[in-house]
């Protein structure tokens, strides 16, 4: 599903934020990406959701070598990835329904199908009563559920969540993580970044530890080199 091989990343002339990162995520796996703030979790996720290209190294996603994938083919790959941002990134001028429907509308899905999927997702995240509300009147927990619904509505193969529980109370954080676990059960590969290791240990999932720009697992470096 996702393979990083000797990947490095730096922003401009600044020091490297990721150094020689190598790992492989199997299809259908669930990984917590843990590490202190500033360790490089968001940078690693940005590489995975194709917001940046690495400074060095090779990334393979969905069997495609990204360095050899032309730019105009990347949107099709991005449509296979769902992203949940820490700051939700909801569009305040759109209703909850329209925010959730965004990936399908971008993909050019017809309105009838979009409505059907949105209704299903609204029920799943328990926000049917807020269908026509604007995000500005929602609580953080409700916003995060809208963001999750938007991330999964197009049935992505890979779900990436960047500190999705960072703005939520522990109970809500736990319930949201359980939502991700449900998605994983139906075959979605999940990577969830969190600095809350106590949350991660409550689930039987693998952990990617990131520190000083390098990725390890359980204290061991994750380096399943080809």
């Amino acid at each position, binding site marked *: 599903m996702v393979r990083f091989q000797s990947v490095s990343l730096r922003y401009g002339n600044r020091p490297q934020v990721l150094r020689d990162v190598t790992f492989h995520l199997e299809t259908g796996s669930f990984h917590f990406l843990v590490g202190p703030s500033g360790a490089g979790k968001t940078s690693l996720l940005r590489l995975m*959701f*194709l*917001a*940046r*290209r690495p400074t060095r190294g090779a990334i393979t996603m969905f069997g495609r070598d990204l360095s050899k994938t032309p*730019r*105009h083919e*990347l*949107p*099709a790959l*991005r*449509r296979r990835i769902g*992203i949940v941002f820490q700051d939700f*990134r909801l*569009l*305040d*001028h*759109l209703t909850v329904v*329209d925010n959730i429907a*965004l*990936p399908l*509308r*971008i*993909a*050019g899905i017809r*309105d009838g199908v979009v409505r059907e999927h949105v209704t299903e997702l609204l029920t799943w995240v328990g926000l049917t009563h807020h269908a026509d509300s604007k995000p500005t009147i929602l609580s953080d927990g409700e916003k995060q559920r809208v963001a999750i619904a938007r991330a999964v509505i197009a049935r992505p193969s890979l779900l990436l969540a960047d500190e999705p529980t960072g703005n939520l109370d522990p109970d809500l954080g736990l319930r949201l993580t359980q939502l991700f676990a449900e998605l994983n059960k139906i075959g979605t590969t999940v990577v969830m970044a969190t600095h809350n290791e106590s949350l991660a240990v409550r689930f039987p999932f693998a952990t990617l530890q990131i520190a000083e720009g390098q990725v390890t697992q359980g204290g061991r470096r994750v380096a399943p080199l080809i």
Partner: protein
Amino acid sequence: MAVRWSLPLSGDSTDLFLPWIIGLMVFMAALALAFALGLGGAIARWSESHGSALTIELPAASVAEDGRVVAVHAVLDDIPGIAGAITLGRNEALKLLQPWLGEGFDGGGLPLPVLIDVQLEPGKTLDLEALRTSLSAAVPDARVESREGWLAPLIATADTIRTLAYAVVALIGLAAVATVVFTTSTSLAAHQDAIELLHLTGAYDGFIAQQFQRQALIHGLLGGLTGLALAGGSYVLVARVAARMAAPLLPRLSLDPLGLAILASLPLAAAGLATIVARLTVLRALSRLP
């Protein structure tokens, strides 16, 4: 529907700013273009009248004019390159004076010179000095007036002014392009987060650009129609004032149907230009994203 919804462009500060700027530019461009097109018509009319290249003037005199006119025609008949010569009657000569002396002027007892309008064969040039020599031998007081002498510099000057007017239109077009680039870039910066969200959600560059170009199209049409309406009003006002002025020396800057059609298409041109520039600006900005 999706295109309309994705970015909140209609709430932008540029939403109010751009239509008025485009309106002002179309207003100025329409006036400059109307002037250039009108001047072009005047130049064409002058050039057309230039076809009868010269006039022979016989001063009003006590001697029998018929004899002088016949003598002039006899000289002209022997000169190659002359297509024909017409002697203007008194009424036609009076008509030539009307722009300066008024419509009702009947000449009274004023002695008028005899004018002979000489038509040249197309493409032929005449040796004026040889003509003058031949004429002065036959009719000593005959005076040859070539229109080329005063009309050519006038046409050249008018042509230069017309070129300048077109240059002004082109400069206004460039300023409009710069304005659309600036406002689109401002809008791109204002909606950076939303654009990145669309990009990461799998939107193609064209999908995002389409929203900006649609907005630019609306702004261009709104501004263009407003500017054209203002220019039309100004044109009518100036035409009314000019009609009340007795200014026969000023060229008549009327517009033919083609000129009017060109002016009427300015809002479409402005909208088209704004749309294309907005699209290219957005595509260029998005190309920097991975």
